[in-house]
């Protein structure tokens, strides 16, 4: 099973690929709405990608109030 840090690292890599930004531009505590310039629906799109990658299912409400990669990684890690 992934460690929390591995999960976080994979999320950053997947987010960078999905939104076509250089991986090095993203940091764990970044506000992903701001750094990626995305809205909440695009975040849900990303979440689907992450679910498929990690083979977990997260209800939409788990994402309510989440806006940085580290917290998001914590939510996913809790379900691995």
């Amino acid at each position, binding site marked *: 099973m992934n460690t929390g840090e591995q999960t976080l690292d994979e999320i950053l890599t997947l987010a960078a690929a999905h939104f076509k930004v250089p991986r090095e531009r993203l940091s764990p505590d970044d506000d992903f709405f701001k750094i990626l310039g995305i809205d*909440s629906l695009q975040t849900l799109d990303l979440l689907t990608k992450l679910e498929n990658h990690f083979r977990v299912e997260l209800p*939409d409400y788990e994402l309510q*109030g989440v806006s940085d990669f580290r917290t998001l990684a914590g939510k996913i890690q809790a379900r691995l």
Partner: protein
Amino acid sequence: MLDLQKYSCLGAALRDALERFGGEICLIEADRDREKTQLTYSDFKEISLPLARALEDAEFDAGDRAAILMTNQSKWLISAYAIFYSGGVLVPLDYKLTAAEQLHLLAHSKAKVLVVEYYLWRAITQSAEFYNIKTKLVLVTEAPLGADLAGGFRWEDFKRKGAPDFVMRQREDVACIVYSSGTGGRPKGCVLTHENYLEQCRALTAWYPFWPGVRYLSILPTNHAIDFMVGFIGPFVCGACVVHLRTLRPEFVRDAFVRYRITYVALVPMIVKNLERGLRAKFDELPGWKRAILNRMIALNRVLTRNKPRVKVSRMLLPQVHRAFGGELLALITGGAFMEPSTMQFFYDLGIPVVNGYGLTEAGTSLTLNDLKPFRADTVGRPLPGVELRVLNPNEEGIGEIAARSKTVMSQYLDDPELTLEAIVDGWLLTGDLGRFDNSGHLQLFGRKKNMIVTEGGKNIYPEDIETVFDGLPVKEYCVFAANYVWPQKEMGQEMLVMALRLEQNQRFDSALLGEITTRNRRLPDFKRVGGYIIWEKDFPRTASMKIKRQALAEEIGKTAERGVVVEL
């Protein structure tokens, strides 16, 4: 549909609808691609009456208030019907607010009953303010067996045998209390009567009727005025079907259009733009020759639908596009926020009419609507039947504040006569929005005079409501504004919140202060965050009681500084 003129309250109209359309499907609930529930009107009645009976036994009486705090689902509507059946007043609360905000509004509404989804109840019970809750009866949906409900009851078990007494209400009685703002400050609870809703429903269905067989996809939160009307009351009194999806994931939303052959859907601009982005990306992937054919078909469709929508023609010309939306979509209804005309035109040119309108919670659901005769992307349509609109103190261009008079306008703000007197003057609701009518009677909007923003997701954000998160900020004083309130512009859009900061003498705006502001800002939900700041060199004007004179300060800033000096956060 039912003749709503004959009814004195929503409960009576819904009760007759359940009898009249008994065998028709009224609700479908799906979670992702898994269908969870499919109910006929008779099934709906069978499930809701034992709940109404249990409420009756719990001494829930006529005029008592019951709040609902749930994401869109069948239990929302079942609970609402049981509340109306019992003569109760419904308080729909926004599930996207924080637990503290929900508790604040719950207390203000004095609701005796709360129907709440388990995950939201869990957050409320963990809130620091929970000890203060006064609600007598809490019904929790979808709670795991054995979960500690902190005094609440499982919704699924809260039922009694035997026929409950139907409690009739009159048209002037209160049906709902809907909060349009005030989560962090002064709550604005719009008191809406049964007449408000019955007349709104009559007006809307006169232009856009539902009928048995129509399937409406409910995506906007049901606590929002639009979905409450077009995703509950409207379809039910016409025998139509409401489809709930327990996720907003774009791929499942797209799938639901096809799976359930959706007829109507109401969406906020953010979702419509997401759909547009998806379609444009698909179009861009087409080989050149296919793209050329598509462009020709779109151009032909534009010509053929210039005067009115012709769905059959459009479906023939652009079959793939229409198949992607299930093949039976008649219109996308949009509301809640400003929509880019280019996005509306994009869909209309594909043969999918976009019905936009203008309304506010204080006026029920909608005051104007595009009647598509012909489609106009540059306006918010004409006043609905029974709605009178006036432009107050128009300037040389005919632009002024819009005032509305209609049977759909709320009676008052709950427990706030002062605010009510400011909002409703001589029977006219002052909307705070600026507009004018064109020669064909269409309303065009030109911004607002209120200090607020409306997000693309349809959320009204008042600066006063979010300022508390910055309490104790180490500066001399600060004040949050809607940028367009400080720097008025004659168009909609480009909305953001801006913070004016007055530093202490000799204080410098350093990275520590920026970090403090950013950290606090991120405690707010993303759609409520302040977008930028401006350093102001003078003390803020204040009243005798030391309150900031917001309007005077906004005018002073607007006159002295350019919008361009705002530093993005």
